[in-house]
């Protein structure tokens, strides 16, 4: 469940509470998205969008973690190899 796609906020169209709306770009396709659930998201931020609603902002620093984790695993393997040979 939950097809949700990351998009970049290009502009805030309406900043009014539950009607808070923004124009979000998905690879060049621009769609109006309800931003009521991401009240702190602003122009330039990436949000995860599900059925026309932003449900979360993308934390850029955390986005790197998948790769940093992999790097740690690789380092661990190298250390292991070094220790063995």
């Amino acid at each position, binding site marked *: *469940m939950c097809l949700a796609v990351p998009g970049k906020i290009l502009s805030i169209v309406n900043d009014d509470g539950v009607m808070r709306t923004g124009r979000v770009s998905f*690879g*060049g396709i621009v769609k109006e998205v309800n931003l009521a659930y991401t009240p702190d998201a602003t122009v330039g931020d990436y949000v995860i969008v599900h059925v026309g609603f932003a449900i979360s902002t993308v934390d850029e620093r955390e986005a790197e973690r998948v790769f940093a984790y992999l790097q740690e695993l690789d380092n661990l393997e190298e250390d292991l190899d070094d220790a063995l040979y």
Partner: protein
Amino acid sequence: MQGAQDFTLSCPLPTDNATHVTLAHGGGGRRMQQLIETMFLPAFANPLSEARHDSAVFTLGGIKLAFTTDSYVVHPLFFPGGDIGTLAVNGTVNDLAMCGARPVYLSVGFILEEGLPMTTLERVVQSMQHTAVAAGIQLITGDTKVVDKGKGDGLFINTAGIGIIEHDLHIAPASVEPGDAIILSGDIGRHGMAIMAVREGLAFESPIQSDCAAVSGLIQTLLDASVTVHCLRDLTRGGLASALVEIAEISHLHVNLDERAIPVREEVRGACEILGLDPMYVANEGRFVCFVPASEVEETLAAMHAHPLGTSAGCIGSVTADMAGVVTMQSRIGVSRMVDMLSGEQLPRIC
């Protein structure tokens, strides 16, 4: 097909699908294929239709001809990159081009809904004439019918087309051979997404333009370069995936694809990602695949790159004989998986 199977009465099947036509039957997927195979082909049984290609090819009075028919029911009538008129002319021209025929004449049948604005009809007619001129064909005969208000989507067009075959190649799925290379003429998914965006009110502010175009000229460059074209197929309803599955099944061979070699524009990808659609199954109206011997890939690409419609043509895979009637694709992350036909039209999803 429905009648040949036995179902228990408590089975919660949508048994209605057997007794009435549904949209899936027109979707270019398995349901449509089954309708053709179990109702139309047996009824009209003859060797020409059994060839199951976009056009029928035959010889009359010593001249090799191609003959095709098509109906256009697109809604909305006007979309970014074209309209029902451009679709009707280019679509028929392309069907003829798929057996290497030079398209010459088209017929046009209009089914108009009572109340259709004259200005709309005028726009479509003008569009058809412009497209015909660009494609080098003439619209020589036609018919007009009007139906009651509420019985049509405003305007339906049926066309038939005749082309002349001026080469000796037998361009059809049956001619595909193990070792053949598969060339794709350009990026995929534009037409279907352009339509979807307008029709479903999925208002994308930067509109995706349909790729609607006549590819007969591009194919002519291949024939002029004496490329041994084995098979051509345009990628309309059901998209690239359905076209290749059909060819694999008719030729009893294995089509191997590389996902990374298949170009998709970023906006098309974006639209597909949001709606949960796979570009492989989205309709195109100006794209085709071409099966040629591996030794002729270079000259094929050279000929295509020199033509304005073929600048991003590329090799997307090859044919082998290790499995019959199957399409597999190497995914982006390097794992191979099967590509099958869909049951009906692809629907956007939220899951």
